[in-house]
């Protein structure tokens, strides 16, 4: 089985440790991983702004990269969600349309793959911290990722999950929205960070780097000490900690 990593441009460029954590977690189960280097970006920034021609140019690298894959895994609900939009993006080109539909059928957000495909809910992690979870909009609303991350966190030893007030509210990133409507976006991320602080969590965890980067940026700007992590990072760190504890015992 060819299981391919769709690392996403954000992880590739800014947060490689997240992609690496995801890869390492999957590798533990004997999953044979590939990283087709033709991939760049899913094209969402251009797609969302209405520049579909340009979005297609970027999307084609993704179609090409994963043509032969059996499964495509991304540490991002919004990038996987973008793949779900590929049939629309390529609706006027029958050849690409067919490829888009095939790609969509085999693409998964990381926790979806872990829980629903591999059947794993307990990765054997220990992470004794107070954690709050931000459910990114695209992952929840477009892909329907709701239970998977919660199941995974439930089985993490020592993890105390505290509720995030108004969790389902958007963090305000929205891609170019954050630049074009900077003040509205600023108001939204400030409110989101307020809620994170309100939750009294030590760690904010999420499934989407765009959101996490956005919220972390505001928290840092305000000098707040909350650690912001992608769930893949948290789980992997927890697994390593779990293994060390285990060896100690």
């Amino acid at each position, binding site marked *: 089985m060819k299981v391919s990593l769709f690392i996403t441009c954000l992880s590739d*460029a*800014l947060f490689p440790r997240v992609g690496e954590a995801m890869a390492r977690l999957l590798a533990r*189960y*004997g999953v044979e991983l590939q990283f087709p280097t033709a991939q760049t970006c899913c094209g969402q920034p251009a797609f969302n702004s*209405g520049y579909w021609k340009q979005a297609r140019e970027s999307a084609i690298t993704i179609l090409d990269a994963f043509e032969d894959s059996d499964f495509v895994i991304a540490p991002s609900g919004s990038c996987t969600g973008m793949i779900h939009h590929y049939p629309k993006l390529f609706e006027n080109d029958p050849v690409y349309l067919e490829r888009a539909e095939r790609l969509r059928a085999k693409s998964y957000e990381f926790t979806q793959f872990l829980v629903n495909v*591999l*059947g794993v809910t307990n990765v054997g992690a220990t992470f004794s911290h107070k954690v709050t979870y931000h459910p990114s909009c695209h992952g929840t609303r477009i892909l329907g990722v709701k239970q998977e991350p919660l199941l995974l966190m439930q089985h993490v030893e020592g993890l105390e999950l505290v509720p995030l007030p108004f969790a389902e509210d958007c963090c305000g990133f929205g*891609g170019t929205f954050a630049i*074009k409507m900077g*003040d509205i976006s600023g108001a939204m991320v400030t409110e989101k960070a307020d809620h994170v602080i309100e939750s009294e969590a030590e760690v904010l965890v999420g499934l989407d780097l765009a959101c996490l980067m956005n919220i972390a940026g505001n928290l840092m700007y305000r000098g707040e000490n909350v650690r912001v992590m992608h769930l893949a990072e948290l789980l992997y760190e927890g697994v390593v900690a779990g293994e060390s504890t285990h060896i100690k015992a």
Partner: protein
Amino acid sequence: MSQPTSKLNTVKERAELALNDEFLRKAVKFTTERLRNGKKAAAEEHGNWDDWRERGRQIRLHTIAHLDYYLNTFVENARANGVHIHFADTAAEAVQITLDIAKQVEAKSVVKSKSMVSEELHLNTALESIDVETIETDLGEYIIQLAHETPSHIVIPAIHKNRYQIADLLSKEAGYTLEPDTTVLAGFVRKKLREKFLEADIGMTGCNFAIAETGSMVLFENEGNARMVTTLPKTQITLMGMERIIPSWADLEVMATLLPRSATGQKLTMYMSGITGPKRQEDGDGPEEMHIIIVDNGRSLQLGDPEFQELLNCIRCGACLNACPVYRHIGGHAYGGTYSGPIGAVLTPSLKSNVAEWDDIANASSLCGACYEACPVKIPLHDMLVYLRRRKVEAGHGNKLESIGMQGFATVMGNSGRFGSVLRLGKLGQKLVVRNGVIKTKLGPLKSWNKYRVTSSLPKESFRDRWDQLEREFTSQPPVMTEEMKQRLERIAVEQQQSVKKGGQHNGH
């Protein structure tokens, strides 16, 4: 303190004004949270909410897909009931017809119940211009009429006003000071408008739903003013958007289940009135003459457009406003049109078919999809916003700087080699702006971003730089996959392929 925002030209400018208005933000937040929570609770209590939404969607889709049949049936039946039907292609026509009727019946005053269509038409000013006193009777609408403002929310029009402002407005109207107490203020309005209801020549309404099979119209309300204006004046004029139709009373059950819960969290509004024609000759009240003006004003433009036809499903419940995080921060006036919130952001450009001018609104969204999730008839507003943006770009009205940026994006992202090079360049270039591992500069595109955030610097190695090493590690001593997992993967791989052949969705919802 709310200022007239009509002088400002862009959503961005109006939004800035709103963001700096503490009272407005608090009021909008409080209202939308209350309504949102109400809806959630009502939907949960009712149960099977998604099934009902799907049903509502199907009924509306079906009706719109056969609109010529259902609208025609409605017209024939309504006429048979004694209603005078008028067709208005444009807002101007609708206004003209209203003025003609008012002149003919020598009306001196009109009492109106809530009608977003009449807002669309700017009807009140037109009536005033022929010296017909026009009084809004919905409490919130009455208040903003006195303030010479437009509604800032589809369901609760005056949420941007506080009780002191309202007391001032009403005291001026009363000619004596009224306490800023809800009961006192509402009591004054009740008394004052009572007189108006009884003396008015014409009662005007909107139309929540029209029942095709019997030519009836249905109004939902909590105050009783819609009943007043359809019971007391001699002449009734109803403004009806051409898409506000459902086939039967049986279908009304679905709408009556979805609408009040979605709008305010109620099981049903205090009054739901089904009006079938003017009064019968022997009746002791009710209008002697009834007119329904069927308004197009850009609605028919959506028909046959696969990307926007669903827009006509809308039942004007306002749930999308209450769910929208952007609306919550900027309120309704920032949107600049009759309709605000997510529905407004799509309706205004679509009805005007003038994407270039109004696209500003389509940008006031982070595309979070909360509107779609909240919509009782499942309109994909978040997708439609992207289509509007695309149409603007395709029409050649894209922002120049943005177009250049996007072309750059395509050039870099269209080729992984170029992408890799840019990453390397970026790591070098950032040295100019990185301090202590972070970037705080507010230059160029980072200006908006770093106004509220601190940006991390690019890491030394990108993932693709790391991969070769990772791959070596993974292949040196690979763990063996369990048989169970192997079978799962194989089974699911097959299912995936089959789902493509069937044309279905997968792993979504």
